[in-house]
């Protein structure tokens, strides 16, 4: 079945795709925005810890579902196994309108100047594909600003002395610290560090017609009951729909991008909610499915000129899978530090992100989101008994006395941490599934140890009676901060897209999500993904002259 031709198809209504769809629709292009999931609400799972984005022993509350979706995960010993969406190695993000921006913790970081210049700053790292971005922070700065104002960020304009130059303040004031944050702030200052409140994609005051956050203890992992958390589902996507130019098609699984013999994308093949196959044609196709699914879709889009998948003639699609190596320390205090002023995370230091002797990159350190009761059963110093009266006593005594300081270490990309498509396993629709294989670069462990040491120092300075580290950096990365699999670059032989996110050699096929990230910063990546959405969306809207998009 063929649908009416439109100007642009955007695949994936998440942080990147939601923004691009809005930019194109308000510029007057007709847009179909595909989403494999559906709208979700707070009421479906409210504050149920076992049905949260962070803890999901049963199934994913924000999708994708276990019935229709699969991936293959290759163990470190080379053994492949099928994994379900709710199992950890699946490396899930989300599948719903707004994707991860519905349930995220909403930290709103801009990457730093050096994050775009990792190779220039640190040189070649053996065994890595560390590289500079083809664009600089300054190129993206106006779009970070757009993201902050259109989607909504609360923060202290002058809070972080290490931040890269910014022109405009945040649209909303920063959130005040909770007790934990204030305690860590004082300790960090005593250590000569530079603490500041975390910028958040959450309303600290009424903004954009939505109310202020009232600081529930449950936030990260859940939809917001009062709509105070700012995602694409309650900002740009509604704007796109109100323009009259954008049609959102939920519960649709895109199978492949069709590329013709001239090397141009003509549209997509997809399945609707009743599993009926369709063809949707368009002048422009934008893929925003997050690093794993974007790579899968490109690899599954085979054509005469691209027999190994769209943009994959040099075998770079799916390579350099990154995320963040989370690392840090926890401490038990004599006094209760938990004050129920959610969501927990509110304090950060940027001192360990770049310019630390002997360390490549680094990352932010933050206090943690409140740990709900079941997850807390795993928060233990090494050697602690996990059950019996000892378990119960620990829960009871320490639930309100533990502070954790953690952060996302900027991973060193490597060529073999990758997404391919499995030669045998297919999903519900018969589409070959993503296969994840490889390991993090060995350096990540070193960087994570450095950051965990710093986190422990801060907790000790704050007066923790007992501290211990949880050092990350092993295994394969990906997960909710997944990135890197359609790297942007100037050379078609060593990258997948050009600096506007356009697939090299396919003029009208774009990527707009974390897949583009050459490196993933020492920060949560969502604001960068949104900024790229504004940047790429604007480029397409202003360069398009009608008809099939081409620069030839």
């Amino acid at each position, binding site marked *: 079945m063929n649908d009416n031709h439109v100007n642009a198809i955007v695949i994936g209504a998440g942080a990147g795709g939601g923004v691009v769809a809005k930019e194109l629709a308000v510029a007057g292009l007709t847009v179909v925005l595909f989403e494999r999931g559906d709208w979700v609400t707070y009421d479906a799972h*409210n*504050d*149920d*810890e*076992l*049905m949260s984005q962070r803890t999901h*022993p*049963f*199934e994913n509350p924000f999708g994708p579902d276990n019935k229709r979706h699969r991936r293959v995960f290759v163990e470190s010993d080379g053994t492949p196994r099928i994994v379900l969406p709710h199992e950890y190695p699946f490396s899930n993000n989300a599948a719903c309108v707004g994707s991860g921006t519905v349930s995220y913790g909403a930290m709103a970081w801009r990457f730093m100047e050096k994050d775009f210049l990792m190779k220039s700053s640190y040189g070649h790292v053996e065994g890595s594909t560390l590289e500079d971005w083809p664009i600089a922070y300054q190129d993206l700065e106006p779009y970070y600003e757009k993201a902050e104002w259109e989607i909504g960020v609360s923060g202290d304009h002058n809070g972080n002395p290490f931040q890269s130059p910014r022109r405009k303040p945040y649209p909303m004031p920063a*959130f*005040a610290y909770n007790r934990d944050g204030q305690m860590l702030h004082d300790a960090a200052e005593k250590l000569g560090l530079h603490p500041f409140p975390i910028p958040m994609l959450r*309303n*600290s*005051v*009424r903004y954009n017609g939505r*109310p*202020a*956050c*009232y*600081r*529930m*203890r*449950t936030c990260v992992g859940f939809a917001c*009951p*009062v709509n105070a958390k700012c995602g694409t589902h309650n900002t740009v996507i509604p704007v796109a729909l109100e323009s009259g130019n954008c049609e959102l098609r939920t519960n649709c699984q895109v199978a492949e991008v069709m590329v013709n013999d001239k090397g141009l994308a003509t549209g997509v093949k997809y399945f609707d909610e009743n599993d009926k196959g369709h063809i949707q044609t368009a002048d422009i196709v934008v893929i925003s499915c997050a690093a794993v699914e974007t790579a899968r879709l490109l690899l599954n889009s085979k054509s005469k000129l691209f027999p190994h998948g769209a943009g994959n003639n040099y075998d770079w699609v799916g390579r350099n899978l990154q995320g963040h190596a989370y690392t840090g320390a926890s401490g038990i205090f004599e006094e209760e530090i938990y*004050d*129920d*002023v959610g969501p927990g995370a509110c304090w950060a230091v940027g001192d360990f992100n770049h310019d630390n002797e002997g360390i490549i990159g680094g990352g932010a350190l933050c206090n943690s989101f409140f740990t*709900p*009761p*079941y997850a*807390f*059963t795993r928060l233990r110093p090494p050697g602690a008994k*996990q*059950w*019996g*009266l000892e*378990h*119960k006593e620990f*829960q*009871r005594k320490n*639930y*309100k006395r533990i502070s954790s300081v953690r952060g996302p270490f900027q991973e060193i990309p490597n060529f073999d941490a990758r997404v391919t498509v499995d030669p045998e396993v297919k999903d519900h629709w018969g589409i070959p599934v993503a296969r994840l294989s490889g390991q993090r670069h060995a350096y990540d462990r070193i960087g994570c140890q450095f950051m965990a040491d710093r986190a422990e120092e801060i907790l000790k300075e704050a007066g923790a009676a007992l501290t211990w580290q949880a050092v990350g950096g092993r295994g394969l990365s990906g997960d909710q901060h997944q990135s890197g699999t359609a790297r942007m670059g100037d050379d078609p032989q060593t990258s997948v897209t050009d600096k506007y996110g356009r697939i090299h050699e396919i003029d009208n096929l774009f990527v707009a999500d974390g897949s583009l990230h050459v490196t993933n910063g020492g920060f949560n990546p969502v604001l960068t993904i949104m900024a790229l959405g504004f940047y790429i969306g604007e480029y397409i809207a202003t360069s398009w002259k009608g008809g099939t998009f081409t620069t030839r």
Partner: protein
Amino acid sequence: MRQLCYTCGSIAILPACTAKYSTWRFLTDDEAKLLIAISEQFIPADKDPGATDAKVVNFFDKQLVGYYKKHQETYRKGLQSIDASAINTFHKRFIDLEWDQQTKFLESMEVGKLPKEDWGEINQSSLFRMLLDHTMQAFYGSPRHGGNCNYVSFKMLKIDYPHVIGQNRYNSNSMDPNQKAS
């Protein structure tokens, strides 16, 4: 409004708390008794309620015909193995062992040190970890999944329950996000 929420809350959790032990959906009575004994070892009653009081076994039974259907066989065979091993080691079924013997048994099972011959294809330490993990989910998760009856674990941790959305801190006269919780 707050009263209303509490009322709704108790209606929602009523079935989990009143289910009789003879109406299991998957478990046999013997299996249920065994799971009650094991989970009580994991989270024993003291001044606060334990796993039995929290009706953790309801969670097992409910999930074994729901999300944990895939674990049915492991549960069935695994619980048999536990009793077989208890009889071989202590000459009694698990539930008939003294408290301290039960503890000792589980400590050995946790590290896979019980005699191998009673376990067939069941990996004793994996089974231990699964039972422990499911017990924790039952005791600390939402009552809607069958356990945590009357939010006993939330009371123990001194966090408010049910979690009344915003009612406990939202002052509609002020939009100040930085007001501290009372």
